[in-house]
C-alpha cells in the first residue's frame, strides 16, 4: 500500500509530507533547520537531548522533532522565545552534568555541544556545576573514551549497532550514574566485539570519543561520513 501524502504547516509555510516522516525530516525537506544534538542522519532517532523540541498546535507539550511523526494538518512552530528558553535549559544542564573543560579538550572548536551553546548565546549557566569524578578509558590502542565529555547522546551505541553491526557499546546504570560501556562493562581494549572501525569516534558530537595521542583542538570529527555511508548503502534512515 503506497504511503499517504498530506500537508502540514511549519512556521506558517505549507509543506507537503509523506506519512511516516518525522517533523525534523519534514522541516529539512522544506529547507528549514531545527537545532539538533543527539540526532545524526542515518541513525534511528532517540530524542535524548531535547534540543530539537518544537511547538505543535493543540498541545501545551513540546515535542522532539526528531522522533515525532508528522500528521495531516499539523501546525508546527520551530522557533520561539519559549523554545529558545527550553533549549537553553537542556544545553545548560548538559554543561553542568559532567566536566566539559573546553579549553583543554581535544574537540575544542570542533565540538557540537560547544557550538550549540554558542548558537543559543549561552554565556553562563544558572545551575551549580556538578564536577563529578569520572574516568577516561585509555585501554584501546587507537581510541580514547573520556566520560568527562560524554553527553549520553548514544550516537556511538547506535552507529556501532546499526551501521557497523558490532554493538560494542551500551548504557549501564541509571539517572546521573548512566555511563557508556563496552561489551559487559569491560575496558574497551579488552572488547572482543570491537572491530576498531572508529565509527563511534566520528559520530561522537563532543570530545568523549577521540583518536589517541591528540592535543587540544586536534580532533576534527567526520560524522558526515557516517551519514554518507548509510545513504550509499541505500538503507532507509
Amino acid at each position, binding site marked *: 500500500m503506497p504511503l499517504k501524502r498530506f500537508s502540514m504547516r511549519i512556521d506558517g509555510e505549507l509543506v507537503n509530507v509523506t506519512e511516516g516522516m518525522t517533523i525534523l525530516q519534514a522541516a529539512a525537506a522544506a529547507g528549514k533547520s531545527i537545532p539538533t544534538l543527539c540526532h545524526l542522519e542515518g541513525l534511528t532517532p532517540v530524542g535524548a537531548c531535547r534540543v530539537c523540541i518544537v511547538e505543535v498546535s493543540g498541545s501545551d507539550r513540546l515535542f522532539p522533532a526528531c522522533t515525532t511523526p508528522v500528521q495531516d494538518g499539523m501546525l508546527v512552530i520551530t522557533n520561539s522565545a519559549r523554545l529558545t528558553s527550553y533549549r537553553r535549559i537542556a544545553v545548560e544542564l548538559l554543561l553542568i552534568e559532567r566536566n566539559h573543560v573546553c*579549553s583543554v*579538550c581535544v574537540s575544542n572548536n570542533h565540538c557540537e555541544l560547544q557550538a550549540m551553546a*554558542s548558537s543559543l548565546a549561552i554565556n*553562563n*549557566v544558572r545551575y*551549580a*556545576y556538578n*564536577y563529578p569524578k*569520572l574516568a577516561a578509558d585509555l585501554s584501546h590502542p587507537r581510541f580514547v573514551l573520556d566520560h568527562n565529555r560524554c553527553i549520553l547522546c548514544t550516537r556511538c551505541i547506535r552507529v556501532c549497532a546499526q551501521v557497523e553491526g558490532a554493538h560494542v557499546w551500551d548504557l549501564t546504570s541509571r539517572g546521573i550514574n548512566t555511563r557508556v560501556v563496552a561489551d559487559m562493562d569491560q575496558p574497551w581494549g579488552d572488547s572482543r566485539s570491537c572491530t576498531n572501525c572508529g565509527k563511534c569516534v566520528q559520530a561522537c558530537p563532543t570530545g568523549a570519543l577521540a583518536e589517541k595521542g591528540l592535543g587540544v583542538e586536534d580532533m576534527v570529527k567526520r560524522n558526515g561520513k557516517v551519514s554518507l555511508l548509510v545513504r550509499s548503502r541505500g538503507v532507509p534512515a
Partner: protein
Amino acid sequence: MKKPRIATVWLDGCSGCHMSLLDMDTALISLTRKIDLVYGPLVDAQDFPEDVDVTLVEGAISSADDLSKIQKIRQRTRALISLGDCAVTGNVPAMRNSIPVNKLLQQIYVEGAQDNRAVPTDRVPALLKQARPISEFVKVDYCLPGCPPPSKSIVTVITNLLEGRRPEVNVAVKFG
C-alpha cells in the same frame, strides 16, 4: 567630569585573560584616556578601593582569600564582570574539584616534590574544598566566557558599559 573608575582582578586563573585585555593594542590607549584604572595586577594599589564603576574579574574562587576579596569587590563595585572561563565555569582550576584538598596538596608538595617536601602553610591562604565560578558566591552582572575571551569582546563590554549600554557583545560568545 569624573572619569569612570575601572578595576581588574586576578583570582584563580593563569593571567591569560589579562593578556587578552592588554592585547587590545592601540584601543588600550584611547580607552585609558577615558577611564581611571584604580586597581589590578597592572596598578600599584594594595587594597581594593571604594566606589568602583566596573570590575573585570579573571579566575575562579579557589581560596579563602579569593572569597573574601570577591565579597569586598561586590560591595564596592557597580558592575561586576566575570572575565573568562575560570570565572564563569571554574574551567581548569576546577579540574581539582573531585580530589580532596589534603590529598591534592600531599600529592603535589610532598609525593611529587624533589626538595622541601612539605605542604606550604605560611602566608598562603587556605584552599576551599572546590574551585567554583564567581556567580555561585556573589551576583555577577555579565559573563564573558572564553579561554581567553577575545580582546575585541573585552573592549566592547567595557565600551558599552562606559557609554551607558548593556554590556552584551555583538558577536557569538564561546566557551574554550
